[in-house]
């Protein structure tokens, strides 16, 4: 790693000010950023650790029935605290990486990073969540802009993510066994006014909504409703772990499993 300074502010306002320095970068749980720094793929002058900011940690129900998760909340906390209210989200968080990764990694870091194989983007897009920053609110449909790219401006901090709680939901991932990221992961969420389906791990453009599956499942929320529906493998990730065609096939399989498991 190139060297850098570390600051640990106690409030969002102080963190935003610290991020105003040239080449400053936010440090969430460090479970992506520290490995990246070790590879010298980034060279910030200052890391602004968000771990000391109590106001962006925790899980609670909002007045209008949504689930609010602080941007600095760890995966382990979400797995524990969302279990009673939003099992699909808790299940997703509880299967990210391994216990030590879940004790450090945060939802804000995961969404900001927008790894094409990350799990949380599927939940955010699959429920139509709102990503709240120190400056504004961004709809999930506008937030993800292709792999490792989001609508966030430089120095903008995710302070909260607000999830509409579905009637039933599930995230099913086909794990890449070495990294434990999603080779393909599908989040299915059934709401009173329709079904949303988000797919991660598959596309070269990162997480996406599978419109045909949403229409079919909105008409009939059953695995068979997806019979005969396919996605094209042409724009899908093609690597040593699987071809685009294989991933396209897995999208259908994991979507059916998610519908069958939804609770």
């Amino acid at each position, binding site marked *: *790693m*190139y*060297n*850098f*300074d*570390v600051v*640990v502010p106690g409030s969002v306002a102080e963190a935003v000010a610290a991020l105003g320095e040239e080449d400053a970068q936010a*440090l969430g749980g*460090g*479970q992506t950023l*520290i*490995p990246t*720094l*070790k590879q010298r793929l980034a060279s910030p002058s200052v*890391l602004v*650790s968000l*771990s000391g900011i109590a106001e962006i940690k925790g899980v609670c129900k909002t007045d209008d029935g949504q689930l609010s998760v602080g941007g600095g909340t760890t995966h*382990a906390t979400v797995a524990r605290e969302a279990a009673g209210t939003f099992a699909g989200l808790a299940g997703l968080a509880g299967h990210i*990486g*391994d*216990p*030590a*990764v879940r*004790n*450090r990694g945060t939802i804000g870091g995961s969404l900001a990073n927008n790894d094409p194989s990350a799990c949380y983007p599927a939940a955010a897009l699959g429920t139509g969540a709102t990503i709240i920053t120190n400056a504004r609110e961004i709809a999930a449909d506008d937030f993800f802009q292709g792999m490792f790219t989001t609508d966030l401006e430089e120095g903008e901090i995710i302070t909260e993510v607000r999830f509409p709680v579905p009637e039933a939901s599930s995230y099913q991932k086909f794990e890449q066994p*070495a990294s*434990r990221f999603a080779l393909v992961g599908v989040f299915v969420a059934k709401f009173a006014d329709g079904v949303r389906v988000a797919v991660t791990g598959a596309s070269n453009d990162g997480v996406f909504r599978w419109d045909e599956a949403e229409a079919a499942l909105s008409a009939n929320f059953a695995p068979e409703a997806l019979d005969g529906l396919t996605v094209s493998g042409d724009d899908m990730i093609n690597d040593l772990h699987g071809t685009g065609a294989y991933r396209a096939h897995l999208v259908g399989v994991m979507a059916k499993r998610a519908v069958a498991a939804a609770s």
Partner: protein
Amino acid sequence: MTQVSMTVNGKAASGEVEGRTLLSSFLRENLHLTGTHVGCDTSQCGACVVHVNGEAVKACTILAAEAAGAEVTTIEGMANADGSLSVLQQSFQDHHGLQCGFCTPGMVMSAAALLKENPKPTEAEVRDYLEGNICRCTGYHNIVKAIMAASGQEVAAVAAE
């Protein structure tokens, strides 16, 4: 360089670190607590697992500066006060849960975190919890047995996968 202070295995510890100093480096190089092993340094293997404020974390993937003020427990802090092995450590020995021993500090720290959270885990829960701890020697089977036995459960039925 800045000064960081934390509590390590119940004792106050401090030292001069750079921003980029990892907790694993601080423990090994500043405090000479070399029981925390660095296997991969890429967050994959779990040999470096320690507890920070009671939670299992990979010491190679947290900065020393982030652990400032925290309570840290390493493998050196796991033995009984009289220096004898803890029940969990003794169980690793009794059940042949180690061969070369390189992964063992991380395995013990992960297992201790699991048993604190879930005192009587099933075999599947043990295997699941150890997802981030890699062992090149044992094939995991005896590690799982050691942890089940340390939790006071029958291990005869634990079968190799």
